[in-house]
């Protein structure tokens, strides 16, 4: 019983010791952490590429050797370069690459001196690809709609080029495009004229609409007044016609008497204070002026 316990303890202790030793890459156990991968060499020959977890080896010093590589997605910002687009515009393009060591053994054979060389190579390849692909498109395509496709194309191309280096590429992305210094001024000039044109257009259109509103208002006002005038004339006409009819009906029933009474009424109006009337005593009114008998003569005159 005690022996068994001791044995277990011993085994556990040895195990822990081995694991601890693996931290310094000593002993038969190789521990690969997440985010890294290791190559185990024997006599300078890459034998095994590890994945996260533990791997056994012989553990002989000098003969065996372990190299550690990053397994994470790595970030690389390539140098800004000036590229001519299909339509002859110069563009300053800055891009970045997300890449990873996919096959460390292959990677090691292509870049024996380490990842620094790899970075330079990737930088060169990516920049060539970008120049190549961007050069086949116009400035407009690069800047707007087709940017996504262009980047996908570059990524695909770069991935193909780098796969033989044991490298996987997740993304090549243009993060910055600039017009080269000096051309800015011409862009500004164009922007300015464009804005001036827009401003003029806005003002002119505003005036157009304003004048239309005024003109329509004027028209409406005129029509309103004219319609009223029409109605007014119609009403006046009705008034005149109806009154004429009323008069005609009334006076028509006694034309003789109308003539008399209307004439007399007219006298009242026509003969005023400033009138001098030369009258004959023969008139009806003065019939009795010369006496009650003298009326026959006057009557005949009337």
């Amino acid at each position, binding site marked *: 019983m005690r022996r068994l316990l001791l044995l277990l303890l011993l085994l556990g202790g040895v195990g822990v010791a081995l694991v601890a030793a693996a931290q310094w890459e000593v002993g038969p156990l190789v521990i690969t952490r997440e985010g890294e991968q290791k190559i185990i060499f024997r006599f300078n020959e890459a034998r095994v590429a590890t994945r996260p977890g533990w791997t056994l080896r012989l553990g002989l010093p000098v003969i065996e050797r372990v190299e550690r590589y990053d397994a994470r997605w790595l970030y690389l910002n390539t140098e800004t370069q000036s590229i001519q687009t299909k339509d002859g515009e110069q563009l300053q393009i800055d891009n*970045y690459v997300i890449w990873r060591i996919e096959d460390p053994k292959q990677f090691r054979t292509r870049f024996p001196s380490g990842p620094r060389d790899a970075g330079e190579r990737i930088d060169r390849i990516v920049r060539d690809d970008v120049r190549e692909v961007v050069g086949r498109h116009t400035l407009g395509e690069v800047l707007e709609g087709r940017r996504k496709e262009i980047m996908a194309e570059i990524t695909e191309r770069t991935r193909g080029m780098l796969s033989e280096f044991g490298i996987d590429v997740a993304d090549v992305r243009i*993060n910055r495009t600039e017009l080269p210094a000096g051309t800015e001024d011409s862009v500004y000039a164009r922007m300015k004229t464009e804005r001036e044109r827009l401003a003029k257009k806005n003002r002119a259109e505003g005036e157009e609409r304003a004048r239309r509103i005024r003109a329509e208002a004027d028209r409406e006002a*005129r029509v309103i007044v004219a319609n009223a005038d029409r109605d007014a004339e119609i009403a006046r006409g009705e008034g005149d016609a109806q009154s004429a009819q009323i008069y005609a009906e009334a006076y028509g029933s006694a034309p003789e008497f109308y003539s008399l009474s209307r004439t007399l009424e007219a006298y009242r109006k026509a*003969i005023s204070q400033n*009138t001098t009337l030369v009258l004959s005593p023969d008139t009806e009114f003065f019939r009795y002026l010369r006496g009650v008998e003298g009326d026959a003569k006057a009557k005949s005159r009337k």
Partner: protein
Amino acid sequence: MAGDAENVAAEEQVQRSVARTLKNGLLFLIVVVLLSAWAYLGFYTLQPGQAAILLRLGRHAGTVSEEGLHFSWPPPIVAREIVNVSEVRSEDFGFRGRESEDTARDELLEATMQTSDNNIVRVPFSVQYAIKNAFAARFRVAEPNAVVRDAAQAAMREAVGRMTVDGVLRERREALVSEVRLLLQDVLDSYDSGIEIQAVQLGDVQVPAPVRAAFDDVVAATQDASRLMNEAEGYRNEILPSARADATERREAALGYRDAKIARATGEAMRFAAIAAEHRKAPEVTEKRLYLETMEAVLPSIDKVIIEPGAANLLPFLPLGRERGSAER
């Protein structure tokens, strides 16, 4: 002496067994102390917002994110990485606030972008992000901050490149923000970065200083245009009611005229009819009466000359030219 020897032997035996027991006890004690000391290393506490990534012999064996005391196999069996996950990080692009002489050229460039209509705008912005997957953020991507920085710029440029300058400056700012956020999140997810974009904020979006006046003028022009239209509307609102009032006046006046005319005609007709009725009853007398009444009314106020019919030759001597008014019968 033999007894002595036996005693010594027994004593030695006792001593040896005591020593062995002591030794065993000591060993046990050491083992226990060592084991518990090692086990003690397996305890760890997590503060709020922290997560522990556990690597058992290098492999990912789980992520613990509840705060409090936890236990795992102690190192080196299980290695722990404690990561702060609740912290919101921020990346700023371009200057915050207004552009000035001492704004570094690099900062300017960071925010300088081209729109689909080939205008240059300065779009300073910031991105807030946090870790949504501690394991991925720690072990899948080498430089998450740099990746966020460049990917954010790429996303913003892509989104701005699809918009017109007016869209970026005014109309579609909200759309721009949400589009950048989606684009950026997509890109970051495609690298399995474990990063979550929480917010994208636009700063003071402007056109470059040399063309700002021209842009402002367009805004002013729009305002001018709407001012003109407002004035025109005002004119319309003024002129139409007055026209309607005019129209009503004219209509009413005409109606008044009509009704008055008819009323008057009716009245006069009635009056005439009444008199005519009387006249019919006694024509002679009525005619005479009317005549005399008229004369009575007319004659008193006027100058009258009564001349015999044979005395017409007297006419030249009358002062007829004295006044304009003259009448004859």
